């Protein structure tokens, strides 16, 4: 199993033995990775049956619930980190999710695909919606309803009382430092309430 490129970036910020909550945890790979790399005590939230089973098979704690309704049942500040890895763009209520991340977690860690990546810009200029390996969907079947650029997300944070603590921008797994909003296709943020 090859870890997704953002796993290491997320793990670098997670303190050893931290209590983590992974929203939309998929098959539990990230939680397993963090447990092995950082000794974390983790839980995942997932809605899909097949993913729930995959988590149970891995021995990863998973709670089946719909994230879109918030994190009722989770006490305020009960986690060191709440992680949302490549899920935000598929969610309906972004404001609620980000608010809930920082209600339940002391810090949030979030991974988003960068819609401002130059190849996507070129596809738009060419007159078509971007389709790529990391965002392989057509406009009509995409689950990604809230795509944004790094600039958009950072503006959102400023206007919603969210302080960005760290940012790690990547392109196909390699770090990007120059013109991140143009050259990066994936970004990981660590943030907290202002």
């Amino acid at each position, binding site marked *: 199993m090859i870890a997704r490129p953002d796993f290491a970036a997320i793990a670098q910020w997670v303190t050893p033995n931290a209590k983590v909550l992974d929203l939309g945890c998929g098959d539990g790979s990230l939680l397993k990775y963090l447990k092995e790399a950082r000794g974390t005590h983790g839980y995942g939230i997932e809605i899909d049956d097949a993913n729930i089973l995959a988590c*149970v098979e891995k021995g990863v704690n998973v*709670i089946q619930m719909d994230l879109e309704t918030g994190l009722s049942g989770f006490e305020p500040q009960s986690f060191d980190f709440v992680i949302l890895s490549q899920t935000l763009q598929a969610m309906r209520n972004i404001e609620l999710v980000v608010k809930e991340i920082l209600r339940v977690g002391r810090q949030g860690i979030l991974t988003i695909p960068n819609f401002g990546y130059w190849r996507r810009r070129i596809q738009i200029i060419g007159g078509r919606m971007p389709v790529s390996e990391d965002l392989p969907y057509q406009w009509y079947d995409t689950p990604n309803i809230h795509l944004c650029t790094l600039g958009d997300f950072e503006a959102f944070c400023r206007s919603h009382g969210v302080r960005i603590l760290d940012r790690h921008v990547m392109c196909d797994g390699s770090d990007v430092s120059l013109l991140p909003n143009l050259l990066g296709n994936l970004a990981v943020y660590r943030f907290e309430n202002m």
Partner: protein
Amino acid sequence: MHSQSPSAGIVTPQIAHFEAPLTLKSGAVLDTYELVYETYGTLNADKTNAILVCHALSGNHHVAGFHSEQDKRPGWWDNMIGPGKPVDTDRFFVIGLNNLGGCHGSTGPSSPDPKTGKPYGKAFPIVTVEDWVETQARLADRLGIESFAAIMGGSLGGMQVLSWTILHPQRVKHGLVIASAPKLTAQNIAFNDVARQAILTDPDFHAGDFYAHDAVPKRGLRLARMLGHITYLSDDVMGEKFGRILKNDVFQFGYGVEFEVESYLRYQGDKFAASFDANTYLLMTKALDYFDPTHHHRVSLSEAMKPAQADFLVLSFTSDWRFAPGRSREIVKALLDNNLNVSYAEITAAHGHDAFLMPDPHYHSLVRAYMCNVVRSLGL
């Protein structure tokens, strides 16, 4: 021969006799009592592979396998437990017992009171979930089982699992709480009370001493079961199964059995009334009503679960309105608040509360996967 998937085979119930007096939660004391139980699989040398199955309202010790070659029906959870099944008896040593107060061989209201030689009847004390856990722990002592690899149960059985993890945290490594609740709601208690009233007001009940009168309060027990049965199914599954189908195509303009659903319920009621003890039914429903780890809100459920150390798998079923998913989520929250390992799945199923007894593939895959990890984590 019993075809389909392999079963635990022919099993013989065993009886454990206990002489040490048992003081119940009510204060009543039972000087001696017996528990009937069955086991499947082999207890390993370290005695670390034992699983206890706690039964629900009308369950018993006959969890898996058959009692004879001629036996047509296997134990009540045979689809879950057996060789190669989700709870694999090639790896685990599984124990099913009939709870104290039952009517399938353990001491209960229909058993003879040693003091009089006649059935206890109304003299049999009401037992609680906590009392059951105490007797189950004594049975474990008898079998030399220090701690269980897992304790599992559905519905009222799930309440026993919760109670175990609170009362004997060191003795439970994993708890499987299925289609259960941390305590009953008013609506749920109300259903139980109507069922009890049906029995208590049956003229054949004789205040619980019907044995002496050579009577059986069948009408009451039948009504109780019919009511219960409705609540264990979902509206959808009843609609699908029976709809408005009539037995004889046209209305009879009378009060006989006309709709299929009436026929079905009466059949279920009759079958149950012929095989179950009315006093046991009363006692089991009362144990359900009384169960409340929070002791009437004296503490929160999270505080009540504080002693627990086990890892948990909590499962609910979408169409179960008697023990609805929301009730399982309350359990999950209390476990989360205590930083315990827990996984929770809400299984899409049409069968209502009864779904926990059905062989749903996803449900069984989840239990199988969880039990594989139990094997791994305990090095079995």
